[in-house]
């Protein structure tokens, strides 16, 4: 009897301890076919090359999510996270990430400047912009002003539930040149101006929650124009044989980065993974699967022309585009979101 008890206790202890001490490298990204593409271009080849097992899961973003994990003390449960510029920014200032040892990133010199920061290594470039269905709208809109012109293009417009991208688009639609957008938005008058522009088409505005919904609204004809992510538009054209068009002028482009969570027990493997994911050889695979751009300039230059034409960093796609200002949003996200919610509530 006694022996059985001891045995049971030992087994119990082992079961408790087993997974904790030998957790596989855990990588968190945005899910969906984007993460499928990352699995093919990064996770699987990394395991094949190094023998390091990778577990991947998805998240919904928000620096608060990361803070909760890191502040719980001990193992945060996640090692590498694919985050947006704002999350990288704030989290780094708050000490939620391990600083990157750049000497371990072999192709550092090939990365675009926005991909290099204290805590983050650029993973992809992506754009948010106006998209429409060429089968239903011909000729289509050519400028941000057309998004707000419901006389010329009748129908609903769908934007994400939140001020980010919407306010930038509103100012560009009101004639502010891209390089002046954040300067204007930093003044109370500029914010008023952006909201006034949104107000002008309020009865035609729809608000969506997830990037997938934007495409669905466009596909069903519920919305004539949507504010969408470029990769989703290309994916809808390729897989569902749609004839959607993503408008590059007045689109807003941003860089997402890999970060390593503080106190990660797999720090070394995590850095090794990030080094692997920054190589041109791996980075040129991803854009063939989803239309997000590499941060490695060599990878960008080696893409086939039909692939390169669909990604944000292609030189002709950058004409009239705006670079997202992560600092602006990490400083102003709360007051502007509250104002935006008041706007939608009225």
């Amino acid at each position, binding site marked *: 009897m006694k022996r059985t008890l001891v045995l049971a206790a030992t087994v119990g202890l082992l079961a408790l301890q087993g997974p904790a001490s030998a957790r596989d490298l855990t990588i968190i990204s945005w899910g969906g076919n984007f993460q499928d593409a990352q699995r093919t271009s990064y996770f699987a080849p990394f395991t094949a090359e190094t023998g390091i097992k990778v577990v991947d899961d998805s998240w*919904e*973003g*928000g*620096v*608060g*999510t990361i*803070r909760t994990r890191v502040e719980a003390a001990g193992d945060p449960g996640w090692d590498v996270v694919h985050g947006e510029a704002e999350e990288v920014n*704030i989290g*780094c*200032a*708050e*000490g*939620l990430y391990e600083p990157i040892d750049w000497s371990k990133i072999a192709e550092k010199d090939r990365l675009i400047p926005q991909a290099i920061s204290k805590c983050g290594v650029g993973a992809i470039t992506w754009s948010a912009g106006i998209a429409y269905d060429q089968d239903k709208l011909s000729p289509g809109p050519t400028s941000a002003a057309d998004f707000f012109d419901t006389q010329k293009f009748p129908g609903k417009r769908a934007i994400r*539930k939140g001020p980010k991208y919407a306010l930038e688009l509103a100012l560009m639609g009101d004639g502010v040149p891209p390089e002046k957008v954040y300067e204007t938005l930093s003044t109370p008058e500029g914010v008023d101006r952006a909201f006034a522009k949104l107000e002008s088409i309020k009865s035609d*505005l*729809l*608000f969506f*929650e997830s990037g997938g*919904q934007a495409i*669905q609204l466009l596909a*069903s*004809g*519920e919305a004539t124009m949507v504010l969408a992510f470029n990769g989703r538009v290309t994916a809808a054209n390729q897989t569902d044989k749609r004839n959607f068009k993503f408008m590059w002028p007045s689109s807003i482009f941003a860089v997402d980065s890999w970060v390593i969570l503080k106190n990660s027990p797999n720090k070394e493997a995590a850095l090794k993974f990030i080094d692997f994911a920054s190589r041109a050889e791996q980075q040129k695979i991803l854009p063939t699967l989803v239309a997000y751009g590499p941060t490695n300039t060599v990878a960008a230059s080696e893409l086939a022309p039909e692939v390169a034409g669909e990604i944000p960093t292609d030189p002709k796609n950058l004409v009239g585009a705006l670079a997202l200002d992560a*600092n602006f949003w*990490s*400083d*102003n*996200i*709360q*007051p502007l*979101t*509250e*104002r935006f*919610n*008041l*706007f*939608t*509530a*009225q």
Partner: protein
Amino acid sequence: MKGRGSGATAVLLLPMLLLLAATLFLPVFLMFLESVRDVEVRSALPQTLSALSEWSPSDPLPEAAYSALRDDLATSDPSVTGRAASRLNIALPGARTLLIGAARAFAEAAPSDDPKTVLVGQDPRWGGAQPWQTIVRVQGPWTDEFLLAAVDLRRTSDGVATIGGGLYRKIYIRTFTVAIAVTGLCLLLGLPVAAFLASLPRQRAVPLLLLLMLPLWTSVLVRAMAWILLLQSSGLVNEVLMALRLIEAPLTLVFNRVGVLVAMTHVLLPFMILPIYNSMRTIPRRQLLAAGSLGATPPVVFRRVYLPQCRSGIAAGCLLVFATASGYYVTPALVGGGSDQMLGTFVQLAALRYSNQPLAAALGVVFLCLFLAAIGALFLLLRPMKTLGAELARG
């Protein structure tokens, strides 16, 4: 003997009390604490605060403040500074960049450089009183700023004032309006269904009850998406109505309040039907027949014999649906429009997007108080305990 009995009861109750303490009272207490604590700035900038202790905004800033800030930023752990920067940014948007920038500027400057020149050179805003005033204002260690912000109030030099358009008050009203409407709809739809089920013999009621439970096995997300497909302007509902020539143009049924009410009622209906069905099943049929044979018309039988006896079931159903509906978050986010988002969305925004956990906690505290008041009112209205007590007394 009696003493032993109550001792045993206490021991038997202990696990439940511990569970309640660990899963309910402690988290609620911590939530309250989070909403009033304000320690980030005082732990990162102690010397700056003591240099500013005598200062009033109308005076010129003491020179010691600049060097104190430099020393604080040099000695504090970067993560402590980062938290203070996030805290300052809540009080003064832009202060995050300001403080992080100051830390960087001091790190790059030579120790002999004049701290004031370094600071103002990095960002001219440091030359003004505002950043310093903000540092003094959020020195804690306790604050009512977040609880006030959760009811759209803000302290000013002369008392309290309402902030902007009163966003959060609108949200509480909206949340309860939706929850009450959903409870009403569930009751309206659920009562006849429960009465019908209760009138069936058990072997015929069980398969129907299983059918009723079936939707509970699908994810809320999937059900919301399904409703979008059904209700959108090119969806099945609109197409059928148009084919029947009942409407000319498609109705807007989703991404507005209609969609929210339909989808939430669908999800929560079983929680209304089951408790009502349960209480109805215990009502003896013979009572109804007796009432009928004594001359009561069917509506009178229903109102005076049937309904009072299933009151506890109705109350349980209403409480369940109302409580669950008040906390709803995913469904309104997906099928609602801009003006249908419920409180859950705003708590999530504050906690995860704004990095403003105290505000999230304060919204929770205010909501909890309002919610308890609402539940109390519902209790008084439906008096489930009275009928329950009466039933117990009847034995």
